[in-house]
């Protein structure tokens, strides 16, 4: 959807090439120890949207993780010694890379991100993020978002600290297909997936996951704004998978506990594929043209670990830049076995540390 609201709750930017993204973000989000007493004064441009407003605020980037109480779990979480004492609501993690911040035209983006359990008032923000979850199909997105927000035991919403608008920057959750199979939105979701699956070999596997094995399948929903720093991904995913395992022990009823013992995760996401793969041969000196561009770096890892996957052409187009003109937006559906998740977590940590 390419509409622009004045005070957009959807601070998407135009950059969609994930490799470029990582390089730029890596540069912009240099973590540095904040010298006490000195505040960088930058010219404040006229910025309307909440994202732009915080983008020009100056503070070091910190990540706060939800306190165990919020996660409704009874386990103690151990962190490495970098962390100071636990506060009531949040933990602070100070990242102290001592590399210098390059101040390119005063455009450094510094932000504090906080992870929260989903709450009812996040409705509008989460709905905007999931607008194109099923391409341009008209379906009961409202109830789908409601289900995500009701499931507070597993699910994380990422917001910026001290943001009075409380805009949602990312949402990650895992929904059990069997638990919600009677909801209209899930029926529509299944119909959509079955319809767009053009590869016969995969279609039967998909059907099985959606119908017979639905009770053991978790729909991993992960959507975020495009320029979100990748350093957030390991804690975000670690948090989510940890919540799933805590839920298998902490949920009040046996049925609910069972519902979180996922054997497979189903992921619906988007990628960019080269329109004419054979015609693009890299010339001397030119960068190698990638056939597939992953909007989210973890998708590449998931695809590697997946049992099966298929792509389908999407009708709606995201706002793209010039370098993406040879690429077409495709939807990607894949199934990842739950036992491969620890491998994924390791791979993600090493990918982001690079």
């Amino acid at each position, binding site marked *: *959807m390419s*509409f*622009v*609201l*004045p*005070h957009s709750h959807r601070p998407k930017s135009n950059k969609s090439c994930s490799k470029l993204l990582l390089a730029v973000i890596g540069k912009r989000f240099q973590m540095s120890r904040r010298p006490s007493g000195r505040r960088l004064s930058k010219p404040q441009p006229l910025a309307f949207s909440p994202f732009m407003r915080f983008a020009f605020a100056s503070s070091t980037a910190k990540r706060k993780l939800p306190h165990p109480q919020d996660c409704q779990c009874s386990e103690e979480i151990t962190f490495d010694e970098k962390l100071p004492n636990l506060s009531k609501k949040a933990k602070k993690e100070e990242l102290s890379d001592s590399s210098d911040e390059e101040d390119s035209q005063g455009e450094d983006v510094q932000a504090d991100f906080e992870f929260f359990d989903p709450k009812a008032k996040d*409705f509008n923000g989460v709905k905007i993020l999931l*607008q194109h979850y099923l391409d341009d*199909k008209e*379906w009961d997105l409202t109830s789908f978002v409601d289900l995500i927000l009701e499931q507070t035991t597993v699910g994380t919403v990422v917001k910026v600290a001290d943001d009075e608008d409380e805009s949602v920057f990312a949402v990650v959750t895992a929904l059990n297909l069997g638990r919600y199979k009677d909801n209209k939105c899930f029926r529509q979701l299944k119909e959509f997936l079955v319809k767009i699956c053009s590869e016969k070999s995969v279609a039967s596997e998909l059907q099985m996951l959606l119908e017979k094995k639905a009770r053991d399948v978790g729909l991993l929903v992960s959507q975020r704004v495009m320029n979100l720093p990748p350093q957030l991904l390991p804690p975000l995913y670690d948090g989510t998978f940890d919540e799933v395992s805590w839920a298998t022990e902490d949920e009040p009823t046996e049925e609910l506990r069972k519902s979180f013992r996922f054997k497979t995760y189903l992921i619906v996401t988007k990628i960019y594929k080269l329109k004419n793969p054979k015609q693009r041969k890299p010339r001397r000196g030119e960068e190698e043209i990638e056939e597939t561009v992953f909007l989210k770096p973890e998708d590449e890892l998931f695809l590697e670990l997946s049992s099966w996957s298929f792509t389908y052409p999407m009708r709606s187009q995201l706002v793209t830049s010039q370098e993406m003109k040879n690429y077409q937006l495709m939807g990607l559906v894949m199934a990842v076995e739950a036992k491969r998740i620890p491998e994924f977590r390791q791979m993600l940590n090493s990918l982001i540390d690079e």
Partner: protein
Amino acid sequence: MATRLQFENNCDIGVFSKLTNAYCLVAIGGSENFYSAFETELADAIPIVKTSIDGTRIIGRLCAGNKNGLLVPHTTNDQELQHLRNSLPDSVVVQRIEERLSALGNCIACNDHVALAHTDLDKETEEIIADVLGVEVFRQTIAGNILVGSYCALSNHGGIVHPHTSVEDLDELSTLLQVPLVAGTVNRGCEVIGAGMTVNDWTAFCGTDTTATELSVMDSIFKLREARPTSIVEEMRKSLIDTYA
């Protein structure tokens, strides 16, 4: 009674349509459900014109108008301008204006008598608004926001403004606009009312997420329950200075 509908899973009706007492503009590319909802309510009363502005579908936020005229930004194509001039009634003056702030729907909130304008609009633009739309123009902010067109939905009977508008501001605006105002939300708590809904004297359209409470506030402030098209002609404009807290 306000109608609830969606444009391609999107509840922001005020972005993809523009409703006045003399015409209705809708964006191209929506499903048939979208158009049929408008046609059911408006069919014989006013023309419904499908259009784009600068090739985009966000027409509701780019243009501003009332029964006297329609203002479109400088980014509008010649073909689009011609199409609008041909399709709209002759009494409606379509004017393309050169203004740096091109999202006119976000900068201007108007009914048939008064208009609220963004504080940074050019002087010439203000004069054109007064001229073409036949309104009195007031430069105002709503709850500290300069984008008055986004945070307010206005008709000749009443208006809804940003929920954080203070009581003093509500009084002041109400006096200027000469209509009752209420601070409220649309589409389940969304504060951007101008983008979430569109309204004229006898009907309103809002997103499917709008709650029953929000709907009843709309019906009462815009006086939609008893209204019919002929009411505009028969009813005198009331100079009530009335606020709903």
